[in-house]
């Protein structure tokens, strides 16, 4: 078990966004959290990566309690969080954004190699290497954010809605990348609106509703759950 979250309660002011959430991520797995808008998925991710402090509960990473450690130190422990809404650095070039992802690393040669790998994975970014990231299109920005997350060679990669706003082709590609990274040994915690795709790549799944986990289990089982099918997978998928 690489990550364990226990009885997490998180507040925004007086609003209790998480009402006691527990889940586990095993090494080498892809674990997905799905749930409607505002269910608390991003809040959970932010708490794991140290951006938010829980009022109750704890976060344990590789056997070490990390929920009192500041975010910038958690990165060094090997957690990389690709936040929701492409929080890229608009005033930095694409390359600089990617290099920021390796901020905690010191191995120049290794960084260079990682940069090449990311550029290979997203050829569009190589084309735009010198463009300021702020002027990229939405989808291009999402690629920067993903690429940046990979640059730190994390043990646990947290992806918050990586497919948001991407073209179908890219969504597919993103999920392929997720699978590849996972196969190469990175554990992944994935939050997705696109529950359909997420459940296909994930090993384990947790379903969140208004700050609580209402269902969990192997992704296949969750996918097969009729309630989940109607609530999250929608009928639209079936139309054509």
């Amino acid at each position, binding site marked *: 078990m690489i990550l364990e979250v226990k009885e997490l309660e998180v507040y925004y002011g007086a609003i209790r966004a998480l009402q006691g959430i527990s889940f586990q991520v095993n090494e080498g797995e892809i674990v997905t959290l799905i749930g409607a808008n505002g269910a608390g998925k991003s809040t959970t991710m932010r708490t794991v990566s140290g951006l938010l402090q829980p009022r109750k509960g704890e976060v344990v990473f590789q056997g070490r309690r990390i929920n009192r450690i500041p975010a*910038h*130190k958690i990165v060094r422990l090997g957690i990389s969080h690709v936040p929701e809404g492409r929080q890229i650095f608009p005033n930095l070039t694409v390359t600089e954004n990617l290099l920021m992802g390796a*901020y905690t690393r010191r191995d120049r040669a290794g960084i260079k190699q990682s940069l090449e790998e990311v550029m290979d994975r997203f050829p569009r970014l190589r084309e735009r290497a010198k463009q300021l990231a702020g002027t990229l299109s939405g989808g291009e920005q999402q690629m920067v954010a993903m690429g940046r997350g990979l640059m*730190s060679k994390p043990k646990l990669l947290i992806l918050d809605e990586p497919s948001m706003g991407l073209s179908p082709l890219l969504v597919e590609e993103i999920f392929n990348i997720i699978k590849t990274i996972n196969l190469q040994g990175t554990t992944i915690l994935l939050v997705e609106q696109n529950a359909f795709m997420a459940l296909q790549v994930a090993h384990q799944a947790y379903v969140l509703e208004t700050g609580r986990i209402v269902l969990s289990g192997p992704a296949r089982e969750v996918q097969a759950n009729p309630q989940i099918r109607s609530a999250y997978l929608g009928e639209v998928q079936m139309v054509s």
Partner: protein
Amino acid sequence: MEQIINGLQLGFMYALIALGYTMVYGVVQLINFAHGDVFMVGAFVGYFGFAVWGLPLPLAIVNAMVICAILGMVIEKIAYRPLRYAPKIAALISALGVSLFLEYFSSLKFVFGPDYRVVPRPIHEVHWHILGIPITNIQVMVIVVVLVMLLLLQLLIYRTRIGMAMRTVAVDHNAARLMGVNVDNTISLTFAIGSAFAALGGVLYAIAYPQIQPFMGIMPGLKAFTAAVLGGIGIIPGAVIGALIMGQVETLTAAFISSQLRDAIAFAILILVLLIRPTGILGRSQTEKV
């Protein structure tokens, strides 16, 4: 010709203050109104160093820079950090408060006192004629310091890890944290460097215009800030360009039109430049992507 030199001297003086101003703005987007007053404290500490305690000049300067760096960090911690996630204007008001505090506190008797102090020249002034242009060693010193500062800042911000960190903190604290950047330290360091530069500026200023008093920072601070805006605030070379323009405009107005109008014309030019380039001379256009 001589007037151009006069303008250059004034311009480089403004640049000395504007550089720190613009750097802090670039990272925290705060018009740090207290910058001019840290500059004043720097001038006083420098003065005490070489004129009262008898330190050699370089040591006096370093001493002033260190003390102001600490002062800058303390100010940030007490007055700005609690407001980091409040609306921008709140920190600006706090900065105004800090500025007034430094001015009035410094003029208390047991601090610096209200007196105007004459600053003895710690070095002999030497007049040179280079290619027929009269210039003094003090002017040369100021110019060299500004150019070195400019170079150092550029290197720091674009070539170092801490510079990268500063540039990311400038846009998004959380995203920077997720990259492993210690946001608090980065901002502290930014204030320390900015304040140390203000102190350096203060000491040189006191040598060039040898008189100091607790309210001396207001006008140079305002002018330097204006220069920074003129050049494009947050952009390091912009501060120097803006300052040089301000220096020229003021000097030429005083020399050939009327010194009564010098501030008026300087600010009129600022407004005109902004109308043509709304984010200053080197400022990037702010077209927001919708």
